[in-house]
């Protein structure tokens, strides 16, 4: 009767098993350091420009939107603090992660998917290499290191974008903007802003690898996996950011 539930539950079980193996492999040899650095380069350095660009414009847009609202209350001096808080807590992590999901969850899924359909994954196992150790774990480590760094860069460039608007349109001085921005941030916000990209990195890497590794049906299958990887990881990023924010507020924010 509940047969229709079997495939999604089985898929989730496979995902959990893959995640456990991938994480366990971090502490097991052999370690493929070369692959980790290659992935860091592909994902981190490769995404740097686009992430910076998006960061800059999200800061500009935030400042523009807030400038109008704040001017009504004569509080345009607070634009720095609002841009800083929204960027560091929420927009920076989410926008960066969605961008990297679109760029790299798809890349990972299509690369591993092509390897799967051309029997390279089987060949790897036949030649004595654990494909999870060789392919999944390096991508997981690389993303977990690189995505928080990208987020920090994106946040900072976003703040610069906000400063550009604050100084040109609102006539704020350098110290007016940066002092309010700096003072608005608490360690709490920074921690939240670093935890999120770390969690998103794990999701992007595992979801991308998961869909790649279970690709079937030739080149068409690779296309399907790629789409699923991007959609699934993006949805999870939004679900998890809401969840983390909710839990964070309960635990750390004293009302």
């Amino acid at each position, binding site marked *: 009767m509940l047969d229709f539930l079997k495939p999604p539950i089985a898929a989730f079980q496979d995902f959990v098993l893959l995640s456990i193996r991938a994480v366990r492999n971090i502490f097991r040899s*052999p370690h493929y350091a070369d692959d980790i650095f290659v992935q860091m380069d592909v994902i981190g350095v490769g995404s740097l420009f686009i992430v910076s660009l998006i960061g800059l414009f999200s800061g500009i847009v935030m400042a523009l939107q807030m400038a109008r609202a704040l001017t009504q209350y004569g509080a345009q001096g607070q634009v720095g603090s609002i841009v800083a808080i929204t960027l560091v807590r929420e927009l920076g992590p989410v926008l960066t992660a969605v961008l990297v999901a679109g760029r790299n969850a798809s890349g990972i899924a299509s690369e591993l998917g092509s*390897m799967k359909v*051309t*029997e*390279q994954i*089987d*060949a*790897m*196992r*036949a*030649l*004595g*290499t*654990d494909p999870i150790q060789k392919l999944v774990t390096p991508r997981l480590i690389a993303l977990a290191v690189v995505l928080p760094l990208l987020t920090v860069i994106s946040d900072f460039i976003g703040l610069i974008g906000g400063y550009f608007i604050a100084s040109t349109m609102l006539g704020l001085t350098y110290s007016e903007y940066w002092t309010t921005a700096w003072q608005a941030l608490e360690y709490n916000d920074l921690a939240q802003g670093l935890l999120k990209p770390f969690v998103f990195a794990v999701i992007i890497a595992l979801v991308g690898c998961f869909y790649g590794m279970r690709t079937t049906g030739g080149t068409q299958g690779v296309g399907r996996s790629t789409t699923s990887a991007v959609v699934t990881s993006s949805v999870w990023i939004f679900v998890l950011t809401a969840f983390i924010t909710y839990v964070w507020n309960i635990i750390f924010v004293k009302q």
Partner: protein
Amino acid sequence: MTPADSTVLRFEDVSLQFDATVALDHVSFDMRPGQTYVVLGAAGSGKTMLLKVAVGLITPDSGRVSLFGQEITHLREQDLFEMRARVGILFQEGGLFDSLTVAENVAYPLMNSHVAHSNASHSNGNGTARSVQDRVRESLRFVELEQTLDKFPNQLSGGMRRRVGIARAVVSEPALLLYDSPTAGLDPITANTIIALILKERDLRNTATIMVTHRYQDGHLMANFRYNSNNGQIERAASGSDVSQVSTKFLVMNEGRLVFEGTEPELQASQDSYVRKFLRVGGA
């Protein structure tokens, strides 16, 4: 030695199913050292699954598979790596890693720690320790592709990729070689070159060989021809005195079931309509 020890590969009542499709249906056979098995079957008859189950890439739903006398059905992946180091596989499209050069592809089985161990003991036995590079060159020379060392697989033709795949399969000098449709999608001349290489490997090192194919000619060549190491030619084996004729067996698969097992004369005498279809198509 128990009987199990003298078999290279043994299937006991092995079944495997994917959703509604039966891939293997109660398959049993025994393979001894030096034997050649030719597995014939239409597309989707379970031939490839047979090979994947044989090296534990897929675990069967029921039944037992033994490799070199040891049951592998319930082994963990880590333990399987050591067993697989003694088996060479040629995948259907070659299965080469396209991010690695030809030389790196062929060296892959040797760079691996699991194999490195068994190689160490191997070279001690020979008294000559050869470097990885030498063995890669030697293996590529074997398939006559020494000039492609630094190329990437996507720069090679289909037949050349297949040959590099053979070089990678034989480089670790395995005791059992599995070929998955080595001639599929190749023109007849290239196909014969591939079969000649398979014969050469089999007859030079007396490797147990399983070849999956849908072409009867391939099996006919395997059963009736041999590699003459004196002149480097493939020649028809002298009838009667020939060893490979006796040691070459044919398996015919249909929808996961083993519908025929026997020698070539027995195959030709078979009255089964499915089996006869292959003989007609082949027309060797």
